[in-house]
C-alpha cells in the first residue's frame, strides 16, 4: 500500500502478505515511548466542551476541534464539533465538512483503502482511508491515516457485510450528532494485529474494491487508522480527560481539557489517580452485588452509565425511553473496579430518573452525571463517569508513570483546576 500523490510512505504491498515491519520502517513515524532526546515542551492542552453538538441533539457529547493539514503542507482546515471518544481509536471525519483534498491510501494497483466500522448498537460509518497531518493543541502527528466518512466520488456502494450489523449509516451531521470522531482509546491502531493476517482470516473492517467490488482486506498496521496521540513526537503515551463536577440535574454546557501525555509535563501527572491495567482488548473487571463482570470499560463515547438491566437492579426502565433507567427517586450505588494489575477500589455512582433529567432546565441540559441505562451482562462506564474526575487513557506499548506499559486506565478525583 502507499499514499497516493503525497508519496509520504511507499510500500509494494501484496494481498495476503503482511509486511508490518517494512511498513513501520518506511512510515517515518517513530512515535515510540523510548526517547533519548527530550524535545522542548509544547502546549499539550486541548479545550473540550460537553454540549448538544452541531445537530443540537446530543446528550453527553464531548466535543473538540481538530486541525487537519495536507501532509507536509501548510494547507490546513480546522474541523469543530468532533466527538472525543475513549472507546475507539482513530480519527473519523464527515467528508461533508472537509474542503481539503487529502491523499488516499491505496494498494499498489491504486485501489483506495476503505473502512466500515460498526458500533455496538449496529450503526456504522463507511468511508475512504486518507492521510493528513493532525494538529491538536501544540501537538502534531504527521501523515495519519484517517477515515473520510462517506467520501464522495468513489463510485462504491456500501458493502453488504457493512449492512449486516443492522444499524443505520450514521455518516451525516444529523445522524452522528458530530462532525467526526476523535478516537483516543487504549490502542495504537483501531484494529491492530487482528487485521494483518491472511485476507481470508481478518475481520470485516477494511476493504479493497477493485472494479468496484469490495472485498475484506488485510492491512498492515501502519496503514490502519491510527490513534494520533501515539504518533506525536512527545506526550505520546496517552491522554488525560479532565472534566469538572456538575449538578445532579445536569448542565447545558461543561468545559474541560484533553491533555496529551501522562506524567510527561507538570499538568498531566497522575496525582492520586490509580492505574488499572486492562486485558489485551481494553477491558477490566467490575464487581457488583458480588458478581464479577470481566468486560468492563470506560468510554467517553457512551453517553450514559450502561450496566446490567432493570430486572437485575430492581430499577425500572423508562416507559417512553426504552433502555434508560427511570427510578422514582435517585438510586445511589457502588461497584468495585479491579485492574489486571490487582488495583481495586470502589466507585460510587448515582442513577437519576432519565425522564426528569431530560426535562430539567426546560430540556436544555446536555451534560448529566447520573444518566443510566441497560447493558445486560456488563458495565460500560460512559460519560457520567468522567465528571469530577481526571481519567487517564494509557496507550498499548507506551510507557507511563512508574514504568507501567499500556493498555491501562487511571482515574482519580479532579477536573476542577487543571491547566
Amino acid at each position, binding site marked *: 500500500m502507499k499514499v497516493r500523490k503525497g508519496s509520504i510512505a511507499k510500500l509494494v504491498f501484496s494481498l495476503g502478505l503482511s509486511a508490518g515491519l517494512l511498513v513501520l520502517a518506511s512510515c517515518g513515524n517513530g512515535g515510540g515511548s523510548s526517547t533519548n532526546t527530550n524535545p522542548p515542551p509544547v502546549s499539550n492542552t486541548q479545550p473540550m466542551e460537553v454540549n448538544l453538538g452541531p445537530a443540537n441533539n446530543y446528550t453527553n457529547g464531548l466535543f473538540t476541534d481538530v486541525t487537519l493539514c495536507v501532509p507536509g503542507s501548510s494547507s490546513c482546515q480546522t474541523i469543530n464539533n468532533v466527538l472525543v471518544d475513549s472507546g475507539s481509536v482513530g480519527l473519523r471525519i464527515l467528508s461533508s465538512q472537509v474542503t481539503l483534498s487529502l491523499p488516499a491510501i491505496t494498494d499498489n494497483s491504486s485501489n483506495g483503502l476503505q473502512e466500515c466500522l460498526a458500533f455496538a448498537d449496529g450503526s456504522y460509518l463507511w468511508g475512504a482511508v486518507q492521510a493528513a497531518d493532525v494538529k491538536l493543541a501544540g501537538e502534531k502527528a504527521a501523515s495519519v491515516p484517517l477515515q473520510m466518512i462517506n467520501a464522495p466520488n468513489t463510485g462504491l456502494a456500501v458493502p453488504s457485510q457493512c449492512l449486516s450489523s443492522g*444499524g443505520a449509516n450514521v455518516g451525516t451531521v444529523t445522524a452522528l450528532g458530530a462532525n467526526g470522531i476523535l478516537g483516543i482509546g487504549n490502542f495504537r491502531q483501531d484494529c491492530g494485529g*487482528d487485521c494483518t493476517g491472511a485476507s481470508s482470516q481478518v475481520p470485516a473492517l477494511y476493504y479493497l474494491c477493485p472494479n468496484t467490488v469490495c472485498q475484506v482486506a488485510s492491512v498492515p498496521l501502519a496503514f490502519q487508522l491510527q490513534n494520533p496521540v501515539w504518533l506525536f513526537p512527545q506526550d505520546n503515551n496517552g491522554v488525560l480527560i479532565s472534566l469538572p463536577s456538575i449538578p445532579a440535574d445536569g448542565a447545558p454546557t461543561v468545559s474541560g481539557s484533553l491533555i496529551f501525555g501522562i506524567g510527561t509535563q507538570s499538568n498531566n501527572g497522575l496525582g492520586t489517580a490509580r492505574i488499572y491495567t486492562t486485558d489485551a482488548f481494553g477491558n477490566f473487571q467490575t464487581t457488583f452485588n458480588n458478581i464479577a463482570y470481566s468486560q468492563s470499560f470506560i468510554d467517553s463515547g457512551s453517553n450514559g452509565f450502561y450496566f446490567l438491566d432493570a430486572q437485575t437492579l430492581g430499577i425500572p426502565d423508562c416507559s417512553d425511553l426504552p433502555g434508560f433507567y427511570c427510578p422514582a427517586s435517585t438510586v445511589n450505588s457502588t461497584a468495585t473496579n479491579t485492574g489486571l494489575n490487582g488495583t481495586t477500589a470502589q466507585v460510587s455512582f448515582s442513577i437519576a430518573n432519565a425522564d426528569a433529567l431530560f426535562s430539567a432546565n426546560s430540556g436544555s441540559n446536555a451534560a448529566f452525571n447520573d444518566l443510566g441505562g441497560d447493558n445486560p451482562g456488563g458495565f460500560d462506564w460512559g460519560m457520567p463517569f468522567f465528571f469530577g474526575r481526571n481519567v487517564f487513557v494509557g496507550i498499548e506499548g507506551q510507557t507511563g508513570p512508574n514504568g507501567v506499559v499500556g493498555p491501562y486506565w487511571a482515574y482519580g478525583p479532579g477536573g476542577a483546576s487543571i491547566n
Partner: protein
Amino acid sequence: MKTVLAALLVLVLGSAPAWAVLGEYESSVSSDQKYLRGEVRAMALQGYSVQQITGADRTVVKEYVSPAGLVFGISWQGPTMPDLQQLLGSSFSEFQQAAQSRVRRRGPLVLRTDRLVVESGGHLRSFHGRAYLPSLLPKNIPAEVVR
C-alpha cells in the same frame, strides 16, 4: 417431521436464502460455520445443547439448540460486530428496525419484545452480545444459559 425435511432440503439444495439460524433448525448451524470459516465444537448439556463455532478472525459464536432441534439462542464475542443478518435470520428485520430508531442512546443496544431479545455491547476489538427467542426456550431452561 415434514417441516424438518423441508428445512433440510432447502439447506441441501443451497437455495437462497439459506441464511437462517435463530429460530431455525440446528442444521442451519452449518451455514454459520461456512460464513465464519470456523471450527465447530458441540456440547450436550442437561436439556439443551451448544454448538460453538470459532471463526478464523477470533469471532466465537455459540448456538443454543433445544431438544426439538431448534436454535433458541445465539451469543457472540469478537473483534468486530458479527454478521447479524446471518445469525438472526428471520428476526434480523425486527432487530434492524430497533437499531435504526435509537433515541438519545449512544452505547450498547438492547431490544426486548415478547418475541425477541437482542443485547449487543462492547467496543472495537471486544464486541459481545446475545439473542434469543423466549417462546423457543426449552422447558425449565432459563434465558441466562444463553451467554
